[in-house]
């Protein structure tokens, strides 16, 4: 059976109040970028171990252990495949391990960023990175409407099930045909919502002037400075260690 409630929950993950979440979004983005860059400095094992350890304070600050665990679990198969492929082509256990840790490092960096950064902040970041308003705004609107549309989907499916509709019956073609009672109301409702939204935007003078003003201003606090310095130190150490430790040769399989 379908699991509509589970579907909705995925979109309902809330950003909790943590020391990390309170940081300036730019700081969070710089930290994220740093820890994506760090494992890429060199393919050597010490660098990978270092970038893992250096992220521990961030995991604690963002209380993202659960998200990290979940993300790693989700990519387990990929990780295993990577080890096997690397080992088969290089026969170097150390190298394969380094490649895996590099991937793990990057997964952790993303998990921390996604746990501690609200969608609205990501929208603001995009604006700051000079992404056009139309795009950043579409992003925010999409996030705003995902839970609404997810609720619609639940209501549509339960409405049809209550009319004796069974989704999982018959062969493939039959199944595709069976999606019609779900898809059509979904599309029509989404269009209607979109239309009313456009009306509301018009009413609120959206796009009336070239330069909108901005209500939200992010300030840099002490925590931001500390973590920015931390990022600089980590990257510097990474560069030093990276040039001192022996490099692996370029090999057919890397990540």
């Amino acid at each position: 059976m379908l699991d509509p409630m589970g579907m909705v929950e995925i979109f309902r993950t809330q950003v909790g109040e943590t020391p990390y979440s309170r940081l300036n979004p730019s700081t969070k983005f710089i930290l994220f970028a740093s820890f994506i860059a760090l494992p890429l400095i060199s393919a050597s094992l010490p660098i990978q171990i270092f970038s893992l350890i250096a992220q521990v304070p961030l995991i604690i600050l963002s209380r993202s252990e659960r998200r990290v665990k979940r993300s790693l679990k989700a990519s387990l198969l990929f990780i295993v495949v990577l080890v096997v492929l690397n080992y088969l082509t290089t026969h170097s256990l150390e190298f394969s391990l380094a490649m895996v840790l590099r991937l793990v490092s990057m997964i952790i960096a993303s998990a921390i960023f996604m746990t501690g950064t609200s969608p609205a902040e990501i929208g603001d970041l995009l604006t700051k990175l000079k992404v056009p308003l139309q795009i950043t705004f579409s992003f925010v609107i999409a996030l705003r409407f995902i839970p609404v549309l997810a609720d619609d989907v639940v209501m549509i499916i339960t409405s049809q099930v209550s009319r004796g509709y069974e989704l999982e019956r018959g062969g493939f073609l039959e199944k595709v045909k069976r999606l019609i009672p779900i898809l059509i109301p979904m599309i029509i409702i989404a269009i209607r919502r979109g239309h009313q939204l456009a009306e509301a935007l018009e009413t609120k003078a959206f796009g009336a002037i070239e330069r909108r003003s901005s209500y939200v201003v992010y300030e840099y606090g002490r925590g931001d400075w500390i973590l920015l310095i931390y990022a600089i130190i980590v990257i510097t150490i990474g560069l030093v260690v990276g040039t001192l430790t022996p490099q692996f040769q370029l090999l057919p399989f890397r990540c």
Partner: protein
Amino acid sequence: MLKIENVTFRYEGSKRPALSEVSLEIDRGEFLLIAGLSGSGKSTLLRLLNGLIPHFYRGEMKGRVLVDGVDTREASVAQLSKKVGLVFQNPDNQIVTLRVDREIAFGLENLGLPREEIIERINEVLKKLGIEHLRKRGTAELSGGEKQLVAIASVLAMKPDVIVLDEPTSELDPFSSARIAKVLGNLNREGVTVVVAEHRLDLFAPKANRMIVMSNGRIVREGHPRELLYRGDISLHGVRPPSVVKLARKYGVVGAQPLAVGELIVALRRGVRIDRS
């Protein structure tokens, strides 16, 4: 202040006009209640007031609408938004941001107001509607009633001369509906001009000082709510007098035309003839 002059409007693709030869004037400080069955033309009338018709909806329009003497065809919806604020029926489809304070800021940012002024207006409007506690809440986690209050706040923050609402309580429970009616009544007392299309006459008639009844795209009755609701013939247009009116009749209240429960009680206690069967 707002003037609709002999407007007939037909939506593109529709055979019959949604509005036929409608004329209406709305003055500053009024609380105008628009009653009528679904499809009687209420929403179309409201869309005329802020220029959504003819700018957003295509169709054939005769006559004209003047907002402070300016023909709505000559002004953009954005320009008109500073004069006429429109709140829609479904709060879910008009909230565009993820947090309450940002939602209220949204229209103001679009107008390019400086940040200090935006903050000031947010504070002011949250206080006015008694929803200061919602300031930092996510818009998705609000109840229907709270969402509608936020939608009203976000329009109010743009300081329009008139706030126009299209069935603001139709998706809400009775408690939230009563709250919306109360909030609008208070705003009107503070000088805000309110125009509201509603089915809940029991809640809104006591607040209004003028009422029109629409039927088949025409204004068929106009007057004070007391006058209209105590005259039986609005039933012809599908509009039913609220329960308080029915009860006043049942109890044989004479010499008073109560619209709110409180008024009815007062009238009954004053010893007007009570015939309890």
